[in-house]
């Protein structure tokens, strides 16, 4: 049962009602259950931010690292214990901003890690500041007149190496999300899953959404599956691009 992989005694979680992280955790637990991953053969490394708390709710050894430092920790764990499945779960701010240098170099070195990025396009825990993935012109508490810059291009950053695995999905597309996580866990190298999710409390409401449900419907309307065999995902396409 996937529920055996959750520390239900620590529920309710710290996350706001309507947050997307819980859905990512459920899908991850389902994939782990399917693949026989548990506390004897798997560890979860998470970073600082709302997403970072995920490792504390899973029934495996978990490490809540410093802000931005998941990848150096995870890479070392994998090097010392190659038999262990090492899964990194963190937010877009943690992975792409404060941990950006590590992301670029970890992708280049291509260690066998699965990275799930909760991409809610905002710094949620600290109150809704613009992040590295905030779309240009989006109003946030730190960009009241709209974000000044284009967001970081995660797909092309990950694809810069000779070998790569980049998946994009959303919390609305649950089966697609689960499939991306499963494929990423099975991928023998650095596998990055970019998961668009909703932060209703510190981002969505400011953008005019009345509920997390409305944000999910927005994901359904906006994101379409990429055509079979696509080598590049267009901005609002979900799918997997990889090269082994």
């Amino acid at each position, binding site marked *: 049962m996937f529920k055996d992989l959750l*520390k239900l005694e*620590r529920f309710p979680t710290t996350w706001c009602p309507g947050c997307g992280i819980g859905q990512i955790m459920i899908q991850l637990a389902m994939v782990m259950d399917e693949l026989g991953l548990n*506390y*004897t*053969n*798997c*560890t979860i*490394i998470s970073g*600082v931010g709302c997403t970072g*708390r995920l*490792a*504390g709710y899973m*029934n*495996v*050894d*978990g*490490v*809540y*690292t*410093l802000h*931005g*430092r998941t*990848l*150096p*920790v*995870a*890479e*070392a*764990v994998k*090097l*010392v*214990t190659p*038999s*262990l499945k090492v899964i990194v779960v963190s937010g877009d701010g943690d992975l792409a901003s404060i941990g950006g*240098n*590590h992301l*670029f*170099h970890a992708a280049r070195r291509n260690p066998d890690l699965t990275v799930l990025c909760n991409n809610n396009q905002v710094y949620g825990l600290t109150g809704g500041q613009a992040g590295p993935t905030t779309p240009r012109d989006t109003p946030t508490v730190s960009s009241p007149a709209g974000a000044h810059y284009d967001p970081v291009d995660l797909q092309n950053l990950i694809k810069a190496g000779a070998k790569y695995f980049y998946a994009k999905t959303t919390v609305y597309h649950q089966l697609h999300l689960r499939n991306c996580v499963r494929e990423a866990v099975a991928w023998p190298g650095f596998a990055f899953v970019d998961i668009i999710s909703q932060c209703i409390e510190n981002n969505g409401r400011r953008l005019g959404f009345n509920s997390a449900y409305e944000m999910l419907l927005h994901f359904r309307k906006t994101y379409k599956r990429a055509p079979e065999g696509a080598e590049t995902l267009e901005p609002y396409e979900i799918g997997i691009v990889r090269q082994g």
Partner: protein
Amino acid sequence: MKRLVQGNEAIFLGAIKAGANFFAGYPISPSSEILVLAAEYAARDPGFKFIQSEDELAAANAIIGASLAGAKSFTATSGPGFTLMQEAIGYGHQVEIPTVIVDVQRVGPATGMPTMPAQQDIVQTNYGSSGDYYPLVFYPNSVEECYRYAAAAFSAAEESLSPVIVLSDAFVGHLNEVVDIDAIEVEVVPRSRPPLGTGRRFFTGLAHDEEGKPRTADAMVYREWLSKVKARHKKVAARYSDLEFKENTSTDTLLISYGIVSRVIAPLASEFALFRPIRIFPMMGVELRECAQGYEKIVVIEANDGQYACLVERELKREVIQIPLLGGRINLDLARKGLSEKLERGLP
């Protein structure tokens, strides 16, 4: 077998003797020999893992990950890199992770004078990260001691469950002396914590209770945790109260120095009493007070602007005379000049 060994090499060999099997680092003079030796060792021995990290933040966090995964891990750096490692050192204290960090000091701040020797990371070593913590720090002054205390640092790390610092400087690191490494006996403490992949634990940089459950607003839990850690560190520190004291009844002056400066001023032993802390932190309160008793004047000679002198002053609750040897020039003439200015001419 006796042979010529370099200080940095001795530190690496001491680490290996202690069972180190993971090194992550970023090249920086005057510590780079340790990184190069680790790379060479990893190329010969597949049981020894090596990462050349993208920066010192990554290196310091990689040794934390390696330690959690069951390795005895270490890194080596110098001032600017040591500054970058401070966040991971604080994390190591919060999460209670045994690991070893070697800091071969050079003149700072910032890039400073690469790579002239200095002792300017003394305060940073003790207070560099946020929060309260009680680091164990060794500062050898010879090649033999580099070996001995590198090995001791790994044992102290396991016993205290914390990042232990080995301080060195460009002179000690690049010092070549004839030693018989194999003849040096060191005690090796085995790994203490079961590795990742054996439990359902949560290792977090958040304040937490015994079960690893975050307790971020509970003052009692925090205070209990901090006093438990403080007591443990005090106990481990007592096990390594290594110092050198050369009494001298013909003088009223005690000279305190450590690391390379203590080697440089060794010829002053006939004129002054000498005190040298080897386990430089936590501060040696009782020992220092005992040794200082009976000496009217206390002088600290160090290659920084009074960093240790201020701590000695606080510990002894007496005025301490400072003789800073700055700008990477550390020699006996400068020490003598300082002593004559401050002791005979009474200059400030």
